């Protein structure tokens, strides 16, 4: 009888430890892993990675095994954290080097009120109406530079913070 009890106890302990470890350390499913990857990204929504925002990039990292070194605003710290989370220790560092933090500034004397930049801003940090001067809400600007190219009069510049 004793060997049977011992075997069952050992089995139960091993299973319990294994399950406990899995529940603590491994993400429950893919969508949760995407969330955790997304949490590590800087949320600038700058699309420099080639995806239309941080979440789509996070999804691509998880689903399509996209490289983790495509995010210049996050810097090499983010690359490292992503590599640690996903267990890809051989990830190369950023190809372009980290981006310095900056905010967009509209030269209000040149602005013609075309609303193109407003439409381009991924975080709604530009206010202004058609034919009226626009301005950037500095606290909300992520420095993604997506508003710079659409401006027809080149009145938007980036200022380092």
């Amino acid at each position, binding site marked *: 009888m004793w060997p049977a009890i011992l075997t069952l106890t050992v089995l139960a302990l091993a299973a319990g430890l294994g399950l406990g470890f899995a529940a603590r350390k491994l993400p429950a499913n893919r969508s949760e892993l995407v969330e955790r990857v997304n949490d590590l990204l800087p*949320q600038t*929504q700058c699309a420099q990675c080639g995806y239309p*925002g*941080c*979440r789509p990039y996070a999804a691509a990292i998880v689903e399509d095994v996209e490289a983790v070194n495509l995010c210049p605003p996050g810097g090499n710290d983010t690359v490292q954290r992503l590599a640690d989370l996903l267990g890809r220790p051989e990830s190369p560092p950023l190809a372009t080097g980290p981006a310095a933090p900056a905010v967009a500034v509209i030269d209000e004397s040149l602005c013609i009120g075309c609303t193109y930049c407003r439409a381009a801003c991924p975080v709604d940090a530009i206010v202004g109406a058609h034919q009226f001067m626009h301005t950037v809400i500095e606290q*909300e600007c*992520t420095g993604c530079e997506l508003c710079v190219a659409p401006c027809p009069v080149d009145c938007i510049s980036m200022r380092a913070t």
Partner: protein
Amino acid sequence: MPGPAATYDLGKLHGGLRLPAHKSESTSLPIQSAPVPEQLILPIDQHAGEPAQPVVSIGERVLKGQLLAEPAAMLGAPVHASSSGTVVAVEPWPVASRHGDVAPCIVIECDGEDRAGEPKERATPYTELPATAVLQQILRGGIVGLGGAVYPTAQKLMHAASCELDYLVLNGAECEPYISCDDMLMRERAEAIVSGARILLHALALDTGYIAVESDKPDALRALAAAMSDAGDERLVLKQIPTIYPSGGEDQLVQLVTGREVPTGGLPTDAGCLVQNVGTAAAIHDWLQDGEPLISRITTITGDGIATPMNVRARIGTPVADIARFAGGYTGSAKHLVIGGPMTGRSVSTDRVPLVKATNCILVLSEVPAGGPELPCIRCGDCAAVCPVQLQPQQLAWYARVDNEGELRRHGLTDCIECGCCDLVCPSHIPLTHEFRVAKARIRELEDEKARAERARRRYEARNERLQREQREREEELARQKERARKAGPDAIAEIMKRSQRDED
């Protein structure tokens, strides 16, 4: 005098040190009044929170007590003119602050007349005002915590009013060596402190107020006891606490006085206590009873580099050089200028810095008591024995060097009060406190970054949702129009075509 030694079993405080006091040098003279200087330099950021917004323009004449800058955010305090004169500049000036060596200041060229504004009609006595009105009035007085943290008093009280409180604790511990400004204030103006305490008890509707004083200040204890018996207020209780550094830390004081422990990451209000410095209580009295906002404070100018160490009541904004001259000037051996005490103060390189609301001490030393070259940690554990917050400084220093944010948090770095006890006992002379300050700043930075990213993420998601909704609405509208056209049928369309033909003709 023997060097600092760890003290144990002293009341309810863990760790701490008995330090050479060096207080008698500056307490032999009564509080002296410094003259109004030629120039006042008033930083707009003299308090915790956001800098105040200047409301005067260059060239404007201002009177003593006039509002110069008002709080721009939820957390802040106004700045008042300390004397009458002309605003000549609003410009960066060297300061001794935690945020940097230079800060924007309002510079006033004093006219020497020290004219006050028209006295406002006698304000209603505070006892007839509701608590919220008293707090509003305290806010307008520019009063901040004078113990050193300069947290705006009104906001602290407003927060406290929303908590369940049992005790008010007035902090007269003044445990740091050299500093004696609170001691002198308690000796000479005990009645103002008692009056301020009664205002605070009224504003917070409390039944018990402790005034805690270290046992090495018998004169202050006597003066306070006399003032309290004069006032005859039974809500106030005088408490003598052991002389041990850092008994004057807010959380440590609460523990010594009430036996309650402030939880990690919490405030004294979480232990049912509100702590205010005795100087703050006196400032509240001066403002509510005498109508004088916080435009002057008592500061200790001392050290072996000063000819006549003393306590000075000086206008906020007076350059430190002027105060030093008033105290007999520097001695030949003066080498180092520290704003604040020897444990928590800040070395500055110039005496052009002004006296601000936080300046409780101006310390001029002939030599910095440096221990020696830094050596590797030998894990002796002395730092853990003296830590009043019961942290493990040696372990924290390890994690601070490798920037391990998670472990630093888990080991309670954010609870470190930067008292400097661990530095002093470390046989390897490791600058522990300095490393903790840097690591704390780094953690705060990461937190800010995280909060910013979180906000950006929410805005991005909200925008995507909005774009999708707009798209859907457009499609629905199009479908509706198609449906209408289909319902009307070909006859109606022909009718419309005919009508438009007729209009053209």
